[in-house]
């Protein structure tokens, strides 16, 4: 048996090798576990490595193969799960001290679907606490470092999910995107990541930050890998009332379908002052490449874009203040050691358990939902949100997919923006509007800065238009080599 070279290996070749008995799932798992053991001390991607569980499940896949049965599309593929997906019997913290010690008695729908397809979860990936952040510095446990430059952030909140794929500490991963938490770290780490249409992927078992904005989605080194994982996790779930019942698209095929006849919209609002010139140059270069591939470029406008960040922070803080109310120390997770009254049990448990960012958002959200202020804040935000969604609806009459930058800058330095939450919130400036509209959006690598930091291209589709996005993304990737660049292993 050939020994698998896992650094930079693709999901398709790993699974094919397992099915063809070129290597065993167990060997893949050992190779990845070995990389994690050697490298993750420097990177901080994993909050928990489930070596024994991974080996056990790998052996089951190998037994399935040996018995001549179908081991599934993702046979033996080692993956990582953002620590926001609940995993039966495996501690799940959402990056927060308040959930330390919480071992869920049930499994999220999407992690169960991955396992059913033969994927092997290696462990739980680091993240900003309760998915609140754009740098992963809000993890209650440790920061994640960007594999391209260890002094820089990987983006957030799915920083561990993006960095682990970039550093080949897993072949693919799951994250969640509420205002950009998949796309922005994908961009900063030079990998591909997609926030599918809201409701396309079940949220059951995904710890809620902002329910109407939370989108689970996949990371891969290439867009095909993202498409493959999405085909496995997408689809209706009776346990999620907001899940969409329509059939899942053929995303892998779409990646290879070419883009003949497609119209790509370039929204002027996404190319305004404040963007790093290197980012702008790379993204414009990518759009030119897409045009050269045969797509028709259409200048378009999304006039309500400027209100997206404000709207987003009203909606997400309101919902977060509600979703985080259950962490009270009564049933699970952290409970304060000493409380003389019920009131004190709550205030001390929550005071000790939550970090600064969740506290900030709980306070903002509580303010937003106060009786008598609902209309002025939350009610108005919902109306603006509809305007933003209408912008997208209108623009997709003129084009099939939008092309924009994912993040206004490449990865910034650890600590650089921590003192200034507003500056941090602007990292989401290009990603929040598609989140508010619930439309699918993908980020893929479209170049590097002169400091060798990845730059991301964001492709946005209409509701349930994932296939259109993959057609552009697949064709662009075929014409470029950015995805083949790998960061050096940290020493």
């Amino acid at each position: 048996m050939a020994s698998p070279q896992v650094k930079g290996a693709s999901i398709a070749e790993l699974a094919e090798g397992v099915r063809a008995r070129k290597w065993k799932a167990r060997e893949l798992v050992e190779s990845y576990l070995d990389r994690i053991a050697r490298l993750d001390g420097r990177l901080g991607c994993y909050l928990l490595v489930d070596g024994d569980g991974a080996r056990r499940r790998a052996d089951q896949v190998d037994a399935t193969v040996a018995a001549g049965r179908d081991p599934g599309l993702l046979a033996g593929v080692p993956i990582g799960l953002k620590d926001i997906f609940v995993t039966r019997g495996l501690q799940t913290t959402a990056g927060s001290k308040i959930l330390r010690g919480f071992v869920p008695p049930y499994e999220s729908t999407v992690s169960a679907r991955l396992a059913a397809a033969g994927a092997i979860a290696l462990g739980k990936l680091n993240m900003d606490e309760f998915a609140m952040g754009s740098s992963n510095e809000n993890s209650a446990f440790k920061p994640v470092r960007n594999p391209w430059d260890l002094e820089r952030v990987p983006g957030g909140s799915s920083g561990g999910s993006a960095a682990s794929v970039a550093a080949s500490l897993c072949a693919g991963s799951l994250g969640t995107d509420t205002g950009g938490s998949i796309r922005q770290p994908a961009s900063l780490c030079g990998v591909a990541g997609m926030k599918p249409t809201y409701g396309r992927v079940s949220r059951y078992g995904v710890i809620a930050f902002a329910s109407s904005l939370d989108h689970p989605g996949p990371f891969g080194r290439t867009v095909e890998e993202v498409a493959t994982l999405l085909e496995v996790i997408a689809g209706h779930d009776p346990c999620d009332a907001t899940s969409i019942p329509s059939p899942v698209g053929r995303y892998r095929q779409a990646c290879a379908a070419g883009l003949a006849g497609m119209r790509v919209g370039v929204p002027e609002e996404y190319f305004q002052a404040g963007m790093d010139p290197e980012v702008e140059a790379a993204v414009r270069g990518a759009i030119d490449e897409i045009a050269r591939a045969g797509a028709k470029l259409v200048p378009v406008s999304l006039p309500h874009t400027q209100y997206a960040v404000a709207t987003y922070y009203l909606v997400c803080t309101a919902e977060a203040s509600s979703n985080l109310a259950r962490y009270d120390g009564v049933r699970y997770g952290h409970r304060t050691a000493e409380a003389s009254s019920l009131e004190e049990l709550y205030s001390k448990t929550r005071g000790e358990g939550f970090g600064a960012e969740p506290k900030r958002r709980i306070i903002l959200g509580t303010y937003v939902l106060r009786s008598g202020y609902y209309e002025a804040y939350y009610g108005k935000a919902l109306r603006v949100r509809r305007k933003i969604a209408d912008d997208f609806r209108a623009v997709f009459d003129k084009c099939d997919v939008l092309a924009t930058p994912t993040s206004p800058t490449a990865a910034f330095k650890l600590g650089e923006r921590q003192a200034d939450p507003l500056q941090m919130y602007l990292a989401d400036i290009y990603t929040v509007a598609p989140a508010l509209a619930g439309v699918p959006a993908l980020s893929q690598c479209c170049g590097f800065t002169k400091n060798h930091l990845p730059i991301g291209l964001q492709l946005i589709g209409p509701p349930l238009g994932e296939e259109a996005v993959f057609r552009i993304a697949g064709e662009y990737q075929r014409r470029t080599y950015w995805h083949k660049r790998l960061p050096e292993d940290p020493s």
Partner: protein
Amino acid sequence: MSVDRYEAVIGLEVHVHLASRSKIFSSSSTAFGKEPNSCTDPVCLGLPGALPVLNRAVVDAAVRLGLAVGSHIRPRCRFARKHYFYPDLPKGFQISQYEEPLCEGGAVEFRVAGEARRVRLTRIHLEDDAGKNIHDDSGVSFVDFNRAGVPLVEIVSEPDIRSAEEAAEYMRALRTLVRTLGISDGNMEEGSLRCDANVSLRLHGTEKLGTKAEMKNINSFKHVREAVEHEIRRQAAVLDRGEAVVQETRLWDPERGLSQSMRSKEHAHDYRYFPEPDLPPLAVDQDWIERAQRSLPELPENRYRRYTDALGLSAQDAGVLCSEREIADYFDVASKACAAPAKKLANWIINEVLARIDDPRRLAAVDLPVPPVALAELVDLVEKGTLSGKLGKDIFGRMWQEKRRAGEIVASESVAVVSDVGLIEEICKKIVAAYPDEVVRYRGGQSKLLGFFVGKVMKEMGGKANPKTANEILLRLLG
């Protein structure tokens, strides 16, 4: 000073457990009285990542209730989160309805001492129940989440109620209604029906509403009567002293028969309602409404009117029969099989059947000793004269004991009344001859001695003489 100076203005918020097998937003059982925390799941425990999915059977039950009271069923309604912290509230919020409830308007019709009353409804909405805190003697508190997620409807009335008595009767009428509809078991002892009462006073003849206090934690008809009565007196005393009633929430303590302030208006909860993002808006289309409308049984108030108008029952009898769904059902089945007048049948049910059971709900039991058709048979035997009233009652007692039919007992033991005029006349003559003194006194004007002779005849015949025939013969012989 006097309570009578004031008119009480009362509105009730009644919470009713809906009888569904599974919870309103998840699959675990709603069974009562199980091992603590054995009927739970990730959703009703509010575990991280769990999501609610609406149980449509619960919506159907609430739609039927809304139609029964003439509410407008909103074609599109929404759920909302109502936030507060309490250990029995696992999510830190209750999923309720706020701005867009399922049902709006409508009214409940019922009677207080035979007098028709109508209380308008503001709204009926769906929500999930909380768990239950259990306090140990040692000072440790536990929480049982079996009740968490049990479906509730909250029925909010307009302030149309004017007395404690009326409040209790209104609540009783709601209980009968939900039990008639089959949407709740209405078990008071299991907390299936609970209410909060908003009470204010104003001088008779004035329009302006007084300041109200909300009484919480009322879970029986007796308690609603006592709590409201107590609150009326308390507010009257406050007003008599020239003070103002404080707007506040008060907790009723049924053990001690008094209430205490829980929180004032200034400390009222800000529930921070907002639309539940995990549940899409609920659409109830016309088809659904029509299906539900067709499924409605005869409602208690219509039944009452049928009993009094078509069947000629007294208000009192009709009231007793309609007080529980099972009594009325029993009466209706018996009535179909019975040729005797409804009034007679009603008497048998009220005096004999109900006297033998402590819980009228038992009338629906399959092993009931005297099912309605068996009672109908007995009543007909008495009405035809085959059995005397006295014999009939004896036989009813034996039917209840032995679970046998009346006809069977009569046939096997020849207990039927003797209607043979010749035989009865013979005995009557014998008795008249045996008591010459009494005959003289009877003829001298002591006509009540007729009963003495009837009694002697009955005794002679072992109680089997047709009393009507014996009466007629004796009257002739003595006359």
